[in-house]
């Protein structure tokens, strides 16, 4: 067998789905052909790559997402139910009432006439009219994407309000997926950065916001958060972030911050360093 014939067998051989005879043919060929033998050797090398395990938090994160999803679905179902009971039924009844009125009867007659004319015209023209353009695929895709974005935002907002710090952490990570930060999510993240009780959650919020430094409100929010932080760890992280954004406007705020009494010396030093970088 030549290389071309072997090439046809090789993919199946690699996945172990050839007959014993065919396997023998491939192996025999590989003893003589270095090129094909190296393809097989390359495939076998994949066995060296270890199988990885996701982090233990992954399951908890999934649970938190599922929980948030259920909460949102229940809320939605509840509001739809309420709307149905109170609003839509009334609309339906008032529609039928109107239908029975003299004005409704006149409108009904006109509508029938129009429908009759339209049907006549349509039959006359033939099938040409039937080709109504459907919405393009790209429009559908855009709709799907925006729906997913909304879903992620809802999950993030719901999780940011949870009792447990780990769920709020997940909320932060969900919020950071989008290239464009929704204003509602942005304000939730800035709120978390300032007031969350857990240092880890505040740091994660800063990390999520760090990707949106091009937005002035985000930079402003991070500067504002500095004044209220008590944890040196978060203070240093905020200072580093401001230095990284190279926003000269932040230098004055950092100078004011540096004057805060009882400031941790390491934090003061970091602020000095950041000011020198921003000038």
């Amino acid at each position: 067998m030549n290389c071309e014939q072997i090439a046809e067998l090789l993919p199946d051989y690699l996945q172990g789905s050839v007959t014993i005879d065919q396997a023998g043919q491939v192996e025999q060929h590989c003893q003589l052909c270095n090129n094909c033998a190296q393809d097989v050797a390359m495939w076998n090398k994949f066995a060296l790559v270890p199988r990885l395990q996701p982090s233990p938090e992954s399951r908890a994160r999934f649970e938190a997402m599922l929980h948030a999803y259920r909460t949102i679905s229940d809320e939605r179902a509840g509001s739809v139910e309420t709307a149905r009971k109170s609003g839509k039924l009334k609309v339906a009844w008032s529609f039928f009432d109107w239908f029975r009125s003299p004005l409704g009867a006149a409108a009904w007659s006109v509508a029938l006439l129009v429908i009759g004319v339209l049907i006549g015209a349509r039959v006359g023209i033939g099938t040409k009219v039937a080709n109504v353009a459907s919405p393009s695929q790209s429009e559908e895709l855009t709709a799907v994407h925006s729906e997913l974005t909304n879903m992620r935002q809802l999950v993030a907002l719901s999780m940011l309000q949870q009792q447990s710090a780990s769920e709020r952490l997940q909320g932060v990570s969900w919020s950071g997926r989008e290239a464009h930060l929704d204003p509602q999510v942005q304000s939730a993240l800035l709120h978390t950065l300032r007031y969350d009780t857990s240092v880890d959650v505040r740091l994660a919020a800063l990390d999520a916001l760090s990707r949106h430094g091009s937005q002035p409100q985000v930079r402003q929010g991070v500067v504002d958060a500095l004044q209220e932080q008590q944890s040196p760890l978060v203070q240093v992280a905020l200072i580093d972030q401001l230095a990284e954004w190279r926003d000269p406007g932040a230098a004055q705020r950092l100078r004011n911050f540096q004057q805060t009494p009882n400031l941790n010396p390491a934090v003061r030093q970091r602020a000095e360093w950041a000011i020198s970088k921003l000038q």
Partner: protein
Amino acid sequence: MNPVPDEDVMLQVRNGEVDMLGLLFDRYQTPLYNFYAKMTQDRVISEDLVQEVFLRILRYRQTYRPGTTFRTWMYQIARNTRIDQVRKTRPETPLVTEPIAPTSLSDSAQHKQEAATLQRALMYLPEDKRELLVLSRFQELKYDEIARLLGCEVGAVKVRIHRALQQLRQVFLQLESGAPATDANGALEDSRPSAVPPGRRLQ
């Protein structure tokens, strides 16, 4: 006792028993994580993408049709999720070309190094070829499953996998010898290993 088939579990999820998705998460989070880890070489992105896949499964559970293999349907979602992620991050991926120093090593250290080189070589392949190798070798998808996933003939899948393997071999040899990983046709110029922060890089 045989475990409940994925398809039955998914139908339950589709019918509103969303908690049953946990069972599918336990079955597939590791394979999916490995799929993304091989595609991106980034732990954090891989975990994010796994979560995103399950959010999408939940959101679009009504589109799952009875009789469809769950695994194929899930990988379809996983591919789309990855495509969206690539679209968002592509402009920020500079080229990394540090050669691996040739040294004499013990067997296990050498295996480790070969595995690392192999993973780097994978990152130099174009996305579609890398995906074919990852799906067929690491995810152990059969060629007919991959063909359904990509919407092409099984024969075409086999040919493409063989070509991808040959290209990977070339890149692997170049990386091992310390040469920059590009081929004579310049076919690799668009494929660049992602810049992964050191703390997140896979071993």
